[in-house]
């Protein structure tokens, strides 16, 4: 069928195709770069089974655990954290004005006693009511403070921490025992490292005993399964690729290790933004780049933090709206990073990519759907043409998801059962028929909400707490 498209219409169609190919090509390139990093990692793994036998001069780490109304699960979470393998570890729980029994549960479980101490307040936070020290566990402290949000809680933890490195972890996340030993490696290898992230994987469907993953699995809930496919495609190996070229702009708030001195120098976490994790990394790149200080943000694919993905639609929607709003805020607040002379890969490649391919994507996607609908209604294309374009779009998405599955199989061979692999592949096809569109809607909502400066909320997430056994 000969199409009667005007020049402008044809140009718009090619522009859409070019956009899709550019973004997908970038993801594919990142995965290829990630593949190279993974090969190096796999080689290193063979010679790293004695990682625990180090010099003993590893830098101490403070693990900061912000907690808000986690009374049901906090004790087991902390018990799990205390079993981490690391020679010099301090744990600070920050009770961010919880209204439930979080404080009481912790005080009684760990024999915490008020223990005031003089602290140099390097970052401004909401008032601290009391600092507790455990009589049972050496190196465990609790900061009880007025509610100020997650960022404020982490800042309070930073103020009181003693170590040159601090690690933020969500109270409901599970870290593998060797996670800290592995995620600290970039700091040992390169003194310019200011932050290091680790892989965050979805715990839904995994078997957990006493706060540790004993068997990996995939979620039984379809919404969580879609998110797992998305993680493998976009989050997991993409970050490895970005880190390789020092263009990583985000480290998950669920698990990240930071150099305290650098974070304090740039002002700590911002409390009036909803994407504080990404905003901090962008600010580190911007300010340290401006000052001409060498800095590196790394990502280690090996250590694993397991976290629960929302299974309720309401929780999922608020999470996605929040993420995209956080992305918008972070990019806007740090727009000075873009094409700045000394910003390196972060400012010249990563930042434009995130604006063009991440932030703009829901708008372009919506415009694509509407334009296709217009062409169809105007009789300029047929249903067969729409099907061809649809098959192209779906096959592109499925290909990228399959690459993610391949990289996962190379990194952790044999850990996903065959039945689960088939399910993940099936979901990588199914996600193009509904999940992506819903995601697009929430991203638009987040972006529009930011532009309209509407009231920000964190929302709440109902936890199944299935690993608290």
């Amino acid at each position, binding site marked *: *069928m*000969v*199409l009667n*498209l005007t020049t402008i219409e*044809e140009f718009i*169609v*090619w522009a859409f*195709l070019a956009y899709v*190919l550019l973004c997908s090509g970038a993801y594919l390139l990142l995965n290829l770069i990630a593949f190279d990093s993974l090969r190096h990692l796999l080689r290193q793994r*063979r*010679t*790293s089974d*004695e*990682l625990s*036998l*180090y*010099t*003993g*001069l590893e830098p*101490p780490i403070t693990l900061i655990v912000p907690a808000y109304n986690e009374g049901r699960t906090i004790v087991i979470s902390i018990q799990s954290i205390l079993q981490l393998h690391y020679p010099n570890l301090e744990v600070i729980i920050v009770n961010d004005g919880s209204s439930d029994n979080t404080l009481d549960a912790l005080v009684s479980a760990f024999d915490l006693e008020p*223990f005031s*101490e*003089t602290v*140099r307040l390097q970052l401004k936070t909401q008032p601290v009511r009391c600092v507790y*020290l455990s*009589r*049972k566990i*050496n190196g465990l402290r609790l900061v009880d403070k007025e509610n100020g949000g997650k960022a404020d809680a982490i800042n309070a933890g930073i103020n009181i921490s*003693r170590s040159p490195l601090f690690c933020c972890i969500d109270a409901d996340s599970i870290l593998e025992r060797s996670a800290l030993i592995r995620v600290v490696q970039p700091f040992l290898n390169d003194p310019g490292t200011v932050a290091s992230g680790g892989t965050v994987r979805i715990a839904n469907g995994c078997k957990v005993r006493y706060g540790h993953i004993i068997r990996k699995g995939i979620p039984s809930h379809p919404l969580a399964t879609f998110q797992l496919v998305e993680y493998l495609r976009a989050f997991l190996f993409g970050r490895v690729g970005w880190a390789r070229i020092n263009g990583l702009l985000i480290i998950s708030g669920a698990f990240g290790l930071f150099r305290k001195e650098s974070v304090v120098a740039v002002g700590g976490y911002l409390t009036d933004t909803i994407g504080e994790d990404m905003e901090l990394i962008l600010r580190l790149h911007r300010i340290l780049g401006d000052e001409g200080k060498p800095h590196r943000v790394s990502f280690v694919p090996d250590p694993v933090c397991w976290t629960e993905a929302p299974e309720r639609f309401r929780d999922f929607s608020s999470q996605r709206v929040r993420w995209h709003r956080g992305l918008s805020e972070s990019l806007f607040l740090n727009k000075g990073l873009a094409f700045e002379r000394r910003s390196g890969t972060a400012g010249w490649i990563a930042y434009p990519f995130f604006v063009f391919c991440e932030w703009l994507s829901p708008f372009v996607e919506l415009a694509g759907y509407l334009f296709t609908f217009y062409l169809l209604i105007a009789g300029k294309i047929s249903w*067969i*043409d729409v099907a*061809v*374009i649809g*098959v*192209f779009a779906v*096959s*592109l998405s*499925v*290909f990228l998801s*399959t*690459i993610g*599955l*391949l990289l996962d*199989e*190379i990194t952790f*061979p*044999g850990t996903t059962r*065959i039945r689960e*692999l088939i399910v993940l*592949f099936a979901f990588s096809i199914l996600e193009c028929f509904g999940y992506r569109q819903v995601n697009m809607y929430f991203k638009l909502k987040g972006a529009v909400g930011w532009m309209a400066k509407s009231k920000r909320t964190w929302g709440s997430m109902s936890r199944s707490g299935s690993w608290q056994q």
Partner: protein
Amino acid sequence: MLLKFWSDSPIADYLSSSTGFINFAFWMGAGLLIATSLTLIHIVFIRITVLYSFRQRHKLANAWNPIVNAFRRNEDVKVPRLAKRHQAYFLELWIELRQLSNQSFAEVLDRLALRLGLDKCIDRILQQTVGFKFFPGKDWLRVQAITVARWLPTERTVNYLTTIAESDNQLLAVESCATLLELEAENSAQSVIKLLFRFPESAPYITAKLGQAGGGSIVTFLEPFLNLLPAYTLMNFISLIEQSDDKTLLPVLKRRLSQAVDAEELSALLRAMGKLGGENERSIVIPYLHHSVTHVRIQAAHALGRIGIPEDAELLLPLLSDENWWLRYRTAQAYINLTKIDREEYDLLMESVMDAYARDIIKHVRAENEWFLT
């Protein structure tokens, strides 16, 4: 014929009458479907490899466990020939049993291995450059063979191992050196020294592996070369020195300490001094209490707390007010170690110290001592 089939097909008709972007989308889609299929095949291939390995291991263990048990009971049992394709798995199984065995069971396993001709098999593997199919690289098989060689050496084993120890393959080189040390081979020290200079970035791994093989005796080999080792490598060997508790190495540490400028190296040496040294070494440690790098001061305070005398406690008092928490902490611990003050003296000390941070840290260490050390 294919071209004719294609040109007659409705798809070709459709594409010829469609515009450029539809053709582009069609062919890109087709290409992506093929690429996806190839990727899936690759995943399946990896999975088959893993499953095959797992099944082979399982099958082999089931087949050989009764034979091993029969040997243990000194029963007369027919030992089957070990197929070449099973060698790698058998080696892995044998190593697992051998590492956990007591002396009598170890003898049983050695007898079985000799009956199977495993020693000759090891030599063949070490000599060969090509491994088996389906295994993730030949390295794995050769590592197994190198490990087994420490229990079943032949005349040629040491020669092979010495050659492999000089290869560019770090994994095999380290394993070979560890085996040479265990065998107390003549040139093992030279191999170890060359290894350290060739792979300095892998010092932690090498240290750990060699430590399992020989511990502090390795450092004795290295003594003449310690001055030439880069700081990062030396730091890892200092941890070995500490583990060995060998005070004869103190002169080596002192010599190196007098020459060191790198802060990390100084810290490691001071810590080792604190572990191995005595009162005679106090005067070497004390000047580092005022070093410009905090980490060095921390290790100096820590070391002085272990080897100092009560009179040295006065020197630690100014450090109690340092801005670095860890320095204050280690200083407070060292002070209390040296003075062995009781509860009343704690209170007097608290009153005499003006600085709030110093008082806090003394309170903290006191609480720790009461809560965790009683």
